[in-house]
């Protein structure tokens, strides 16, 4: 059997590959450190740093929260609502999107035990822990 691809390691390898490319082209020193892409970089070649930023975007930023919006946690069992935003890291957000929690989707709360929810989305049931439910905002139907 082949070795299991270690996902994180694999993305690293891509980065590594690119990093090598960048270094060859004599990019700034920022390519080694972390969290330097934004500022403090004496980069001579703006383009290459832009690439790094672009590459790292998908794993970094979380959509900024929108404090005015109520989250699913607040909905009692039996209630319906329309999903508004998913305030989760991109990887999880994508996952929930593919499970059908796109903006505007109607969900029905089947059970709400202290923020731990079972919801009916499209035609399936999802169990959400409080840390997920509290990051999904809704609009009333």
């Amino acid at each position, binding site marked *: 059997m082949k070795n299991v691809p270690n996902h994180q390691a694999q993305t690293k390898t891509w980065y590594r590959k690119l990093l090598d490319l960048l270094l060859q082209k004599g990019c700034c020193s920022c390519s080694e450190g972390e969290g330097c892409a934004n500022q403090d970089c004496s980069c001579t070649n703006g383009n290459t740093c832009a*690439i790094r930023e672009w590459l790292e975007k998908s794993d970094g930023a979380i959509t900024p929260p929108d404090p005015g919006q109520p989250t699913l946690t607040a909905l009692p069992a039996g209630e319906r609502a329309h999903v508004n935003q998913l305030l989760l890291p991109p*990887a999880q957000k*994508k996952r929930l999107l593919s499970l059908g929690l796109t903006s505007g989707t109607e969900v029905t709360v089947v059970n709400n035990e202290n923020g731990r929810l079972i919801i009916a989305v499209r035609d399936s*049931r999802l169990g959400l822990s409080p840390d997920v439910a509290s990051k999904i905002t809704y609009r009333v139907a």
Partner: protein
Amino acid sequence: MILALAGQPNVGKSSVFNTLTGMQQHVGNWPGKTVEKKEGLFTLSDGRRISLIDLPGTYSLTSNTIEEIITRDFILQTRPDAIINVVDTSNLERNLYLTTELLDLGRPVVMILNMMDLADQKGYSIDAPALSEALGLPVITAVASRKNGLNELYSSLDNLIAASDKHRGNFCFSPPVEQVIANIGERLQHYSFEGHPVRWLAIKLLEDDAQIKGLVAATVSESDLAALQAEISQHFPGGPSSLAEERYRWINSVLDAAVRREGLGKISASDRVDLVLTSRWLGVPILLAVLAGVFLLIFKLSPPLQELIGGLFSWLSHLIQVYLGPVLPNWLVRLLTDGVLAGVGTAMSFVPLILITFTLFGLLEDVGYFARAAFVMDRWLGPLGLPGKAFISLLMGYGCNVPAIMAARTAENERDRLLTILVTPLTICSARQVVAVALIGAFFRPKFAPWVMLGLYLVGFALICLVSFVLKNMVLKAERNPFFIELPMYRLPNLTNIITYAWHKTRGYLQRAATYIAAVSALLWVLSYFPGGSIDHSIIGTIGHWIEPVGRPFGFDWRLLVALLSGFAAKETTLATLGVLYHANESSIGAVLTSSIPFASGLSFFVFSMFYIPCLVTVLTIRQESGSRKWTAFALAYTLLLAALLSLIVYHLALALS
């Protein structure tokens, strides 16, 4: 000719695979059973050989989890002649999401509308021809668990494959997005990306897929990359989520054309069951009661059968003595009876226990309880740093650690997965359960036996909690991922599946008993008889006296040490070894152990054998799944240390108290 079975988790892919190929892939009712692709062969009526690949179920084809990477890499690299997309018709809307992603890959697709029975039950009415028309794909309706519709599939496969070049589906994004995709495709066209379709690459770039972004960035020229970024940021304001929305918009238009769904989003009977089974106050007590019930049943049902099989082996060895005794030399007869038959018989007598364990767990699994158990336990596992999904691995671990560790692949990230892999070996697998039952029978009065067993499971679970808590705070400090899980509808169990599954597992055990354990028993007997003719003057006796000091702090004599060593290859061998070394057979082993091992030593041995290093196959699995020698060594070291510590404590406590 290669066909790939793809679909979301728990839709019946493996059921279809098993029917077509006659193989026995694991089937059950929770998402994520198949984690590694599996190949099977079958022949079409015209004699053509088809190689069919059962792929792991995935909700989408991003590069987030291992199964998704396996699935998409397989399709991209092997380029199967057609993809058979199995969908759960009672869950069509979400299932078609993956279909849209499969269509992006540019291979011909044939759809199996599986679970038609459940769709009927749910009140869906499906116009298959209209659906086929709307999708632009051929569809076949089926109930794979009852093998309905698979004959049609089989007989129409030739036609489907012959015409498969047409089946590319009707799916497309909205015109502005398609324009962006076309523009990106234009730029990518001049490069080669390991033969990946350009349209797919463009879509993945828009979806912000880390792997593909890396690939593109490392391949295209700098000016092209800049142009791509500009294209995306200027003409694609919606971001990745707009693509998901568009996919669902297309899906809904398809459904509107061909499917009537009554009672969508209504609370169903299955939901009402969940209101009780996952409720805050009842969820965990019910889970505990279910598990206690399962173990109680196991221990109630298996002893009578155990005795029956034990009796059979006593009779066999009696036969050998009577009929072969006069013919063969004495040592050979004893090798057969005291060596091979004693060892194999001891292992064999526990076959019912293994069979019953896997049947009952298979039942829980098939009804759909596993996903609920994970959901309920998440609340308690959370503070320990374990994701709720880890509980499915742990539950499976009580059957066998190997598939349990593989099941950790469904974890959301590497950290959760590693933690799950590391703690799973602390579950008492069925082979260890065999050893436990024998030892408890030997050292405790029958009245206490069930309580000791219960205590063992509780201690095991407490250790899991402890270890993951320590790991969470010391080594794997990253936050665990927020937890969510699909809860499949409860279903009536499919008895054929469960029995096939349990039998499959039991057969593995039988095979080990007949080959490996027979060989080890024979070897041990020879080593313990020659050259002196008695165990004290044998090779193993001499070696034993050498290593004896190692066991002294724990109260082990050398026989127990040898038993532990032999148990590393397969845990049930521990018992066969004890049988040979103490000259006991399956029916006398309890009494012999009681009389020849002091209670304190016995107890200490019991504890040690439950928690010391996992068996060889498990270790290899840990190595493969963690992909790291360091973590494998860590798992070995910590379990050994833990077992040593516990048995040291138990031994001295028992000595002090008695």
